[in-house]
């Protein structure tokens, strides 16, 4: 490892509709790229083992855990983060439902939870509690016991 310096790579990414072209080490994780290079810190890091889902973002329309994707793997991709969800100051229905149903407490898992949930309900307005609970198995919340999150996702599914 000693003295091993890899060449920088240029990564181009469209994040929340805005194009970015940034030089980075190839080892940089997508989550660090978004947080440190782009300065969007809404995407959180909660574990090192791809368990907690706090870092969930959308990459080319799919929910992914950005702690387990290299930024270079997302080169040329469209990435959406929690910061891009509201439009013109109006909350996304999922954000609104989390607010209305008290689906968050400390707020740390919330961005990842919301990003996972928006994909979960796509094309499934009548999603059941059980489907929601299974669909959120990649997102850990320590505060809420999930109950109000399930409620919120259900409400948002119907609103969307």
């Amino acid at each position, binding site marked *: *490892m*000693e003295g091993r*310096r890899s060449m920088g790579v240029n990564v181009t990414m469209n994040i929340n509709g805005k194009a970015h072209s940034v030089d980075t*080490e190839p*080892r*940089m994780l997508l989550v660090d790229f978004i*947080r440190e290079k782009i300065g*969007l*810190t*809404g*995407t*959180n*890091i*909660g*574990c*090192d*083992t791809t*368990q*907690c889902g*706090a870092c969930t973002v959308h990459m080319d329309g799919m929910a992914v855990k950005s702690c387990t994707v290299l930024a270079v793997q997302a080169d040329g991709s469209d990435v959406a*983060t*929690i*910061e891009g*969800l*509201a439009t013109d100051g109006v*909350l996304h229905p999922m*954000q609104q439902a*989390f*607010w*209305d149903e*008290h689906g*968050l*407490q*400390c*707020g*740390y*898992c*919330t*961005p990842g939870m*919301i990003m996972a949930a928006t994909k979960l309900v796509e094309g499934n307005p009548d999603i059941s*509690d*059980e489907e*929601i*609970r*299974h669909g*959120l*198995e990649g*997102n*850990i*919340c*320590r*505060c*809420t*016991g*999930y*109950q*109000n*999150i*399930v409620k919120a996702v259900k409400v948002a599914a119907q609103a969307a």
Partner: protein
Amino acid sequence: MSRFVGKSFKRVEDPRFLQGQGSYVANLQRPGMAYVAILRSPHAHARIVGIDASAAEALDGVIAVYKGQDLIDGGVGPLPCGWVVPELKIPERWPIVPDCVRHVGDGVAVVVADSPYVAEDALELIEVDYEPLPVSLGARATTEYRATQIHDGIPNNTAYTWALGDEQAMRKAFAEAAHVVELDLINQRLIPNAMEPRACMAEWDAAMEEMTVWTTSQNPHPIRLLLSAFTLGIPENKLRVISPDVGGGFGSKIFHYPEEVVVPWVARAIQRPAKWVSTRSEAFMTDSQGRDHVTNVKMAMQRDGVITGLHVQTWADQGAYLSTFAPLIPTALSITLFSGLYKIPGIWGEMKGTLTNTVPVDAYRGAGRPEASYLLERIVELGAKKMGMDPIAFRRLNLIPAEEFPYQTPVAFQYDSGNYQGLFDKLEELSDYGQLRAEQQVQRAAGKLWGVGVSGCIEASGPAPSAVAGSLGSAVGLWESGTVRVHPSGKVTALTGSHAHGQGHETTFAQVVAEELNIEIEDVEIIHGDTGRIPFGMGTYGSRSAAVGGSALVRSAERVREKMIKIAAHQMESRPEDVYFDDETRTIRVQGATDEGMTFGAVAMAAYTAHDLPPDIEPGLDETAFFDPSNFTFPNSAHLAVVSIDRETGEITLEKYVGVDDVGKVINPLIVDGQLVGGVAQGVGQALWEHGIYGEDGQLLTGSMLDYAMPRADRFPTIQTGRIETPSPTNPLGVKGAGEMGTIAGTVTVANAVMDALAPLGVDHVEMPFTSEKIWQTIQSHSDS
């Protein structure tokens, strides 16, 4: 008629979290910031023979590498223990150890680099020569004759012994008992795992000689005090500690941690801002852990099932060092609750706080009270079984009657209020208890393992008053501060010494202040978590914020209100006793007068223009109160769970959960229910999945979320909640605290349900967590029953 208190309001703090704008410490940046990483011991116990950091120091991008002795030479002091029980032996604990590591994760060197990636590269290049030493593990085993001594001067690895109660009455009860039940049990090691890992950032202003520290703390002022007086030595008036948005704490962010010393020390040493962010892996080996009690409990009963005595002996594993409040948890927060909801004349509790080569143990959601409830509600369950009584009927036989409050227990506490029979009335109604028992007959007839478990739990919240806390060992007071600052325009900023890390104080406290001042919630902003902005405050733990912090705001708002009445009376040429805040018009008016009175803003402006104030009134509208309650509050609960067990695999399914709680008056039902449900999930986690397991060599075998099972969404049914309200008489809001009851009750309720499911096999007790394997093994070994 209250406009705000008692009603559900959406949280005002949520928009920033919902949009990814939370200001967690890890998100903060300062210009020129350096990154700190800490080399962790891979050994549970070893002497450090030498450290060669030359390769790390030579790495491009590394600013400095420091060893433990560098920090000591640089003026850093050992981390103190802030709860001193009699004859406590406090092991020396250095932020970075100079000579001997005592748990896996103990810090041995500090790397400072230009980027976190390089800092981690440098960690790999540091060579440490360790001489491994034998390890000592197990709360009770560590006290044995042959155990390795972990610290000089602490024989038998026993930091303290403590006892409370009426030993004579206990002995009498057992001597005269018709029935005695006994149980050995373990309340296993847990890992708090707040979703936000800890972090610390610091910036040194050399010109002003001022240090600012941003840290993930539940109580920034006590951290500032400890940094100043013990570990860092910067005067309190030159030290600002900011605890901004914090992503959950559950107790684990109360304590003064090594990194809070290291990071500011580094920032001053390199004259650059510095930041450290814990990884989850580090969190598993450095965040204070929870529980880990080994207990023997005996209960004495009369012929009719009336409980007369309780004798408890516990060994509490405190880990390798005494964390900030470690000795408090098994003592004054646990033995004091051994009476539970019951009249038990003879209670005697004995506790040993012991040291092992593991991560330090301190408060974790519930903190001592879940341990008390677990042992009591398990032995009560066995008592009911022994008597052949329904578990609710047995509890009802022994409950403290509603008319006996205040009730003095034999273990120091005087319970203020409650209606324990009422709890069970409501629980039976909500859960349709009779029907559940009928269904159980059907399930059992079909060969199913299907259990119903109940519990009745008590909690002591809002530790108080300060004088009593002091007599029990506290090095700090346990009051809270609150400031209500009315600006000339009539907008209000309220400062609280409580700290929110998920509890929603910005909403709840705005409700309280708006109610008192007859203004809108939107007109009140709550500020917390910054020693540069708020008066000294004690922070948030022990479900204390509403009862103590909320009450401080009520007191300061009352003072504002009184002053405004005097000013308004003067301005309207009336007598103060005739002036009132009119709920309907939101104005300040004179009784019987027909004019519109004065608006809140007009009175506020008058206070600041000070052109025409009453002679004895100072300008301004800014009041601070320090509320020191006369007693703890005592939230209480009756919970029920239904579980089914897969006989073939041992897998448990939680089928139903109902919790009835008396948390006193409720300020915001939406938030209180959220606390209770979230608390239950955490309690269920302990019963079914969570376990910090150490191997024989002191390695944490469940050191990541791949191995430590966190509760997930798909493992829960909808948790039903119900409430009864008996207001606490010891604070102006009548609240008791809602933060921990769910966790306290959740664990033992599910445990009782699992034992009830296994009862047909002749099983009395299984240790938590009830993993599939443990249950399967139990079924196998009882398969002929």
